[in-house]
């Protein structure tokens, strides 16, 4: 059984082929890194996998279940979670409320009209616990507008982790972070339980190279190289398209 299987996936924006016959197989518990230069189609691939956009052709399977035409929000219920490269959070709310919303998303409670959300201690406590796990417990009640960029990155990841996904898709979690903040995020990623399959996009190859078990190199929407860390780094085509020499 594979965690995530993408077969012959194609997507075209007008005349531009952003995803060209992509095949991707990720085993359960694997740490997969997807790298590629700007415009390689990395985020588009994520958007196709999560269902934010529909593919022109090809299929996507999640644990052997065909999800190609399953609605985006249903895929979350099937065990998929993602973070965004451009931080996408609820800026007017507290950190705690952000994570609470993540938990509510998978709970039937989200349709409740008669209960007071503040009084739903079980959910709120779970949100607090999720924040404590990523080291943000002490600022849980702080409005998001009063947090640093690095903290917001961790809130993004905390929201995804709070949903206890089977497959976690991280879109450039290190983008724009300082060295210290990178270390914090890195610790966070290392602490993710092994049963969670993690696929990470990273523009900057050095940041996450030692984290990945297998690496896929995308270029102009195509998979150019795929293999273990050593294989991909040693491959001449990697040097050619990615490292530029």
């Amino acid at each position: 059984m594979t965690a995530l299987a993408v077969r012959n996936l194609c997507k075209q924006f007008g005349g531009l082929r952003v995803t060209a016959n992509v095949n991707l197989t990720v085993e359960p518990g694997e740490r997969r890194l997807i790298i590629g230069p700007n415009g390689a189609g990395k985020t588009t691939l994520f958007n196709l996998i999560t269902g934010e956009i529909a593919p022109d052709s090809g299929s996507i399977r999640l644990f052997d279940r065909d999800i190609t035409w399953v609605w985006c929000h249903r895929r979350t219920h099937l065990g998929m979670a993602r973070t965004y490269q451009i931080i996408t959070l609820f800026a007017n709310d507290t950190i705690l409320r952000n994570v609470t919303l993540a938990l509510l998303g998978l709970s039937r409670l989200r349709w409740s009209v008669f209960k007071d959300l503040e009084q739903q201690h079980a959910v709120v406590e779970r949100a607090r616990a999720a924040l404590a796990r990523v080291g943000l417990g002490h600022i849980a009640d702080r409005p998001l507008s009063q947090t640093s960029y690095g903290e917001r990155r961790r809130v993004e990841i905390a929201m995804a982790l709070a949903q206890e996904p089977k497959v976690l898709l991280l879109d450039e979690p290190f983008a724009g972070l300082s060295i210290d903040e990178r270390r914090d995020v890195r610790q966070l990623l290392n602490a993710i339980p092994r049963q969670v399959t993690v696929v990470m996009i990273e523009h900057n190859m050095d940041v996450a190279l030692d984290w990945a078990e297998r690496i896929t190199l995308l270029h102009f929407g195509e998979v150019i190289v795929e293999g273990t860390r050593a294989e991909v780094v040693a491959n001449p085509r990697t040097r050619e398209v990615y490292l530029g020499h």
Partner: protein
Amino acid sequence: MIAKLRYGAIAVALVLLVTLPLWMGNSYYINIASQILLFAVFALALNVLVGYAGLVSLGHAGLFAVAGYSSALFLQAGFDHLFSNSAAIVITLVASAIFAALALRSTGIGFLMITLALGQIVWGVAYRWASLTNGDNGVNVSTRPTPFGISLASAPSFYFATLVVFLLALITMAVFVRSPFGASLRGTRDQARRMTALGYNVWLIRFLAIVFSGFWTGVSGLLFIYYNQFVSPQVAALTSSAEVLLMVISGGTATLFGPIVGAAIVVIMKNVVSAYIERWNLVLGVIFVVIISFMPEGLVPGSVRLARWLWQTTRFRTTAARPSEELKP
């Protein structure tokens, strides 16, 4: 401190509202109070969309009119009040669902334009389909209902009935806003994309919000036809939609009390100021410009901000004054 002030203010407002016919005396002013309350229900309903869902509708007068006309026509056909009103609410809910299904193909300006068009269709039907709606002459509603045998013919009794409905609407809104569903709806307003990724069916949440809003719009439409005992195409006109939208925006969107204050301003302008100044529309316009210029978030949140600022500056001054006093020999 702020919370205590808030509960105190609510208690005072409640006492004033319940005793209003006693100290107001003149039935003309009691009727204006009834109008304020029924339009407050309308504004609260629209605020669900404008404030909490971030969907600006310019077709809500259409739903208001659908409820009013449905009930008025059933009554005219000889049905009793209970049936006419229940049927009118069901029809309004169906109309809201149709509005929602069509308008939710878009958000933002697109949503606004589609609701505007749908509202105009209702207006067109009311105005031109004379064999059904009696066209420009409107439909008379000869009697008011007598719930539990209480006649609503007098101004104070109708006021109390309106007050009960208004308080029900307000409590419903307060519960709704605090509920998980209310939080979900605000989430779809702030980050629709993220909400989808978190597992929320954004379309369905918005759809249900429009139907919920349609329900209270319908209720206020029923209050309106009983108040006026008459309904005409003017009710469905674009200006009516714009007016109630102005109530919401001027009072403060996404606040519980903003739409009520907005409704009070507009109704008082229309009825009281118009008696003294012929160009009352001009006064209303100036008031809105002033509100939007100095309190762009609306009158209620703006006043709260002002009060906080005053509270803090006065406190700061007194604490800052103390050291200098200590320095005195």
